[in-house]
């Protein structure tokens, strides 16, 4: 089992213990030169979030200390991770989407340059729902940034000078961008957010040197606009025009197959009763050719979504031994609670297993790829549906998993949340009363709201789990030292043994962590681990409005599940960097 692609090629020589036994670590793998840097979100094109760097290991991680810290100057949800290219670290912030270049070759990592975009302030009240940003991309001496107001910007990585800027959408129509761009060959690939506003999702490729749009493909609509047939006939009338299927998650790429992979979000804003059909290609994993934008295949995880199982979670590309055969696979932990293993060459479903408590479906039909739904858990705007698991916040949200080729395990920050979905009630928006579904999220079985899992993708089974009081809402990082790092909403950065899940070390950062830990080797030759903390601004509201919700029943109903968050942490925006003394 090897990491299929990406810069961590040196690790392909390692022998993973896919049986995953015991606490005794095998000999260290050689450290890949490329792993001394962290040049893209999720570490490599396969999105494994694994680095072979191994100075910090399960034995010595207990001595980990803060090396330095950096305030981003912004107090909202900090998702994503900084990049390290050469001796420079690039740190991004939520809106207003500042980018800092920090000089790691100097003591205290002073600021080399700072880029602060000017964005139309009307983006704030109009595109009100989410001001997070999941990070920048680097390629070819340039830093690429997606701004909330849908501008994609290229900066000179050395000076921070703006090289080009292209607007991808109109925030006044509810379009925003929160996802990180990904560079594939000579193109910058960007998604779009705004699914709750009926935005029709698309993916755009722009030329890295000029910003010129090369192609744009939609999630819904005619074949010419989707790059794949079969969408229009799964909608009533022209509802595909408001079809949703936004593209705000992470992207991965297999250079050998020349395909990139991403997921699309929930279907458009009509209630499920009013959009009969499968609503393709919402809730879908797409495999597209980056040169043409055309799709090689598309697999819809949740046809005709009734739960907001917004299917944008990352697709990790690894080669797994399935039934005695090495397959080029794609592994996805979906919001709907199922973990999928697909053949990434053709989209064939190889395995689908629930990784959290799931009761809306009993399984996935391996022939059709469709979930086997439980009729009593099908929501409708005309009835109340109780105790659906997982909740709309998902068995896992956007926080990305990690895969260690040394253990063969996936490390999965998961939610243990269920929901009540009540039928009709009248709300008020844009000056007029309307019908709204009410969702109330609540802790799932056991009462803990999250669990950090080690998952065997071949067996489709949990290996171990660490129960978390709150959801595990930060990403995971695994390393050649057999240490796995993850952050919690209370603000703890934790290091656990990759094989056993034993807690080895923890540190309370200034704010809740919803970002992703990363690691690199500094110019001084030492290994560092860095994470952004900053959970967002609930303070003063008195309830956990950090979910972006103002009452326990609004939208996702997150408040019902996280009333006590304010007692654990406070808002912030700090990068904390750790090393051995």
């Amino acid at each position, binding site marked *: 089992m090897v990491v299929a692609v990406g810069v961590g090629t040196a690790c392909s020589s390692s022998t993973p213990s896919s049986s995953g036994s015991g606490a005794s670590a095998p000999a260290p793998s050689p450290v890949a030169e490329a792993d001394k840097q962290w040049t893209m979100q999720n570490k490599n094109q396969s999105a494994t979030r694994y680095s072979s760097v191994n100075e910090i290991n399960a034995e010595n991680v207990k001595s980990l200390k803060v090396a330095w810290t950096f305030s981003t100057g912004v107090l909202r949800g900090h998702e994503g991770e900084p990049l390290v290219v050469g001796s420079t670290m690039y740190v991004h912030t939520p809106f207003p989407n500042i980018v800092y270049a920090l000089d790691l070759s100097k003591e205290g990592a002073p600021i080399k340059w700072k880029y602060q975009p000017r964005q139309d302030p009307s983006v704030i009240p*109009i595109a009100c729902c989410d001001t997070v940003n999941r990070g920048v991309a680097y390629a070819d001496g340039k830093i690429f940034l997606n701004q909330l107001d849908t501008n994609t910007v290229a900066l000179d990585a050395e000076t921070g000078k703006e090289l080009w800027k292209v607007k991808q959408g*109109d925030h006044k129509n509810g379009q925003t961008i929160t996802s990180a761009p990904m560079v594939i060959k000579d193109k910058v690939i960007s998604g779009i957010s705004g699914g709750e506003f009926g935005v029709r999702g698309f993916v755009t490729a722009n030329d890295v040197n000029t910003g010129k749009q090369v192609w744009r493909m939609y999630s819904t609509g005619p074949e010419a606009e989707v790059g794949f047939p079969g969408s229009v006939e799964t909608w009533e009338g022209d509802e595909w025009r408001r079809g949703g299927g936004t593209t705000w998650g992470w992207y991965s790429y297999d250079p050998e197959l020349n395909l990139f992979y991403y997921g699309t979000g929930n279907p458009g804003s009509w209630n499920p009763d009013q959009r009969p059909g499968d609503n393709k290609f919402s809730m879908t994993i797409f495999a597209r050719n980056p040169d043409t934008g055309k799709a090689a295949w598309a697999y819809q995880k949740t046809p005709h979504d009734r739960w907001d199982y917004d299917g944008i979670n990352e697709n990790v590309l690894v080669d797994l031994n399935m039934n005695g055969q090495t397959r080029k696979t794609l592994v996805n932990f979906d919001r709907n609670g199922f973990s999928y293993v697909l053949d990434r060459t053709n989209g064939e479903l190889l395995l689908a297993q629930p990784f959290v408590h799931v009761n809306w479906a009993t399984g996935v039909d391996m022939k059709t790829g469709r979930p086997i739904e439980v009729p009593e858990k099908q929501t409708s705007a005309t009835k109340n549906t109780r105790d659906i698991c997982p909740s709309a916040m998902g068995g896992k949200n956007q926080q990305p998993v990690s895969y260690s080729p040394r253990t063969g395990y996936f490390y999965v920050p998961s939610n243990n949340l269920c929901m009540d979905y009540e039928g009709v009630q009248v*709300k008020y928006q*844009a000056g007029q009363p309307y019908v709204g579904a009410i969702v109330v999220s609540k802790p799932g079985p056991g009462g803990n709201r999250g669990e950090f899992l080690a998952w065997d993708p071949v067996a489709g089974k949990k290996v171990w789990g660490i129960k978390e009081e709150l959801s595990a809402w930060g990403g995971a990082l695994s390393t050649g030292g057999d240490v796995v790092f993850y952050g919690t909403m209370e603000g703890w950065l934790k290091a656990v043994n990759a094989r056993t899940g034993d807690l080895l070390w923890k540190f309370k950062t200034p704010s809740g962590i919803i970002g992703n830990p990363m690691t690199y080797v500094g110019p001084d030759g030492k290994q560092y681990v860095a994470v952004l903390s900053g959970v967002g*601004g609930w303070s003063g509201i008195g309830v956990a409005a950090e979910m972006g919700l103002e009452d326990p029943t609004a939208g996702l109903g997150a408040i019902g599940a996280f009333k006590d968050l304010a007692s654990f942490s406070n808002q912030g925006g700090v990068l904390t960097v750790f090393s051995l003394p």
Partner: protein
Amino acid sequence: MTHRDALRVVVALSLLCASTGFAQTKPASPKPGSSQPGGGGGQFRVCADPENMPHSNQKLEGFENKIADVIAKEFAASTRYTWWGQRRGFIRNTMNATLEEGRCDVVIGVPEGYDLVTPTKPYYRSTYVFVYPRDKGPQVKSLDDPVLKKVKIGVHLLGDDYTNPPPVHELSKRGVVGNLVGFSTFYSAENPPSSIIDAVASGKVDLAIVWGPAAGYFVKQQRVPLVMIPVPSGKGDLPFEFGIAMGVKPGNQELKARLEKVIETRHAAITKILNDYNVPLVEGKAGSKR
């Protein structure tokens, strides 16, 4: 819902608001708590949508702007606005925002019983209406009219979680789905709030089903004479009539009482404003239907 995005974590948008100076006036505002909204010579702090005619806009042309002035006058205060799109996050980012700069005390129009705020008693009552050309329109008077399956019906899409205006919701129950034409409430230069009424006038749709206050103002502006016919609720349907109240921060009973007093004493002035804006008013006991 998508919310989407995930953690829609977010929220401290209010901070942003403060740092970009989005609030129309920089305060000098009284400290929260000590603030006497409407107190003699003070500020009457209103949370409003910057671009949602005929309700409100930043040029103060909406009927809610005019009503706010009536109240402010009674309070011997000046009106100060905090602008925010009236959609997800509106209350959170205005009335419930943590920073003083982002705060305001009153939303001029919320439906009675709206539980994100403490509503006053309703000060007017309106209804969803059918809008079609007076002369050659389809003469629809009920959601059960079979012609509704054949004609093009313009409806508003309220961009939130699985949402529809109540009559549109009830249309789906009657199997009327495919012939609906959606109009976004996300305003922009290409999509002004009048677009749904413009579409009726131009024949792009045969009729529209629109919330009365959002229809009346634009109906009046059309050259083609249009009629507004209240949409009656059938048995088992949701209500289509709603009482509209003012909203204050949850628990602010004192301000609620003061507003209710003005609603009573200035009832005639408020009703005149609503009539000027061609808001279809319906009789009905406040709070009788919800």
